[in-house]
C-alpha cells in the first residue's frame, strides 16, 4: 500500500526539518511531500538544502489550497492513503499507524485523529478553543448527523476515494470542519482515532484570537449551507 504524508508548511523554517526527520526515523518507507505555501521565511531554502521532497507553491494559497495540492499530488501519483500532517510539529508521528488502521482494513474511508476521544493526548488546547470545538461538533451532529469529537483536527487520513474527492474539491479558508460536511454529502464513511498532539513548538497557529468570532460564523454558515444541499440530494434520490 502506497502511503503519502501531506505536510502543509507556511513559515515553518524551524520545525519542518525536524518533522521530516521524524517521519524518516519512524518509517523509512513512508513517502512524504512538503507543500511550501509561499512562505516568506527560509522554509524553501531549508527544504532545498536538505533535499526534502517538496512542492513549492508559486503564490500563497492558504491552508486549504496547500493541503489540496497534496491531495492532487497523491491522486496523480496514485497513492492508496494520504495523511494530513502539520508542519509545525504539533502532531505525533507515532500515531500514524493508529490513524491508518481502520482505513487499511477498509472499515472506513476517512479517519480523523482526535484529542478528545480518550486521554491519549495530554494537550487539549485552551478553554475557549475547546468551547468552539464543542459548538462545531454539536452543529455537525445536528445538521449532518455525525459524531466528530475533534472537527478542527488537521491530523487526518483518507483512502483513494477521499483523495479523488479532495483533489477535485476542497474548501479554502478554514477547511477542516467544512471538508467533513463535504465528505458526508458524498457518503464517505468517517470515524475517529485517538491521537496525541503537542503544543506548538514555535510559530503561530493559523487561527488568531481576534479572528475566532469570524471563524465561528464562517464555519457555522458553511456547515448549514452544505447540509442544505445534502437534504436536497437526498430528496432527489
Amino acid at each position, binding site marked *: 500500500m502506497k502511503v503519502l504524508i501531506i505536510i502543509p508548511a507556511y513559515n515553518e523554517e524551524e520545525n519542518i526539518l525536524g518533522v521530516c526527520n521524524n517521519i524518516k526515523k519512524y518509517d523509512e518507507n513512508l513517502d512524504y511531500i512538503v507543500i511550501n505555501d509561499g512562505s516568506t521565511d527560509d522554509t524553501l531554502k531549508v527544504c532545498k538544502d536538505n533535499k526534502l521532497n*517538496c*512542492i*513549492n*507553491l*508559486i*503564490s500563497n*494559497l492558504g491552508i486549504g*489550497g496547500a493541503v*489540496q*495540492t497534496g491531495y*492532487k*499530488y497523491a491522486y*496523480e501519483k496514485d497513492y492508496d492513503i494520504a495523511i494530513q500532517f502539520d508542519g509545525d510539529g504539533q502532531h505525533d508521528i507515532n500515531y500514524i499507524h493508529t490513524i491508518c488502521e481502520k482505513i487499511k482494513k477498509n472499515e472506513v474511508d476517512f479517519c480523523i485523529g482526535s484529542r478528545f476521544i480518550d486521554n491519549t493526548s495530554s494537550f487539549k488546547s485552551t478553554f475557549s478553543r475547546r468551547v468552539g470545538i464543542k459548538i462545531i461538533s454539536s452543529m455537525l451532529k445536528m445538521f449532518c448527523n455525525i459524531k466528530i469529537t475533534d472537527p478542527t483536527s488537521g491530523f487526518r487520513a483518507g483512502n483513494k476515494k477521499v483523495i479523488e474527492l479532495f483533489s477535485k474539491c476542497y474548501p*479554502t479558508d478554514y477547511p477542516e470542519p467544512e471538508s467533513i460536511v463535504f465528505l458526508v454529502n458524498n457518503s464517505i464513511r468517517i470515524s475517529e482515532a485517538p491521537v496525541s498532539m503537542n503544543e506548538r513548538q514555535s510559530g503561530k497557529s493559523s487561527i488568531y484570537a481576534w479572528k475566532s468570532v469570524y471563524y465561528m460564523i464562517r464555519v457555522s454558515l458553511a456547515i448549514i449551507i452544505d447540509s442544505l444541499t445534502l437534504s436536497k440530494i437526498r430528496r432527489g434520490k
Partner: protein
Amino acid sequence: MSDTLKILLILITLIYLFVIIKAVKKRKMHINYSIFWIFTGVVLIVSILIPNFIENISNFLGFEKTSNMVFCIAIFILFYLVLNLTNIVSKQYQQIVKLIQEVSILKADSNKEDNNENK
C-alpha cells in the same frame, strides 16, 4: 430643462460612450461587460432628448417623486452589479487556485527530473 443644459448633458454622455467604445477597441474592457455601460449611455441620451420621459415612467409606476424612482433603480442596478462582480471574483479565485496548484506540481516534477538527470 434649458437647451444649454440639455446640450451639455448630451455632450457629457457622448464623451462617456466614446470612452467606453475606445476601451473596448483597445481590448482594455471585455465586450461582454461593455454592453451594460453602452446601454446605460443610450438610455441617458434618450431620457435627455425625449421631454418628460423619466417623469412619465415615474408617474405611470406611481412614484411620488421622480428622483425617488431614479435613485431606486440606480441602487437596484448597483446591487446587481456588485453581486455579479462577487460571482466573477469567486470564479476567478477558484481558477487562480487551480492554476497555482497545477503549475507548482508541474514545476516540482520537472525539478525532480532535472536532479535525476544530473545524477
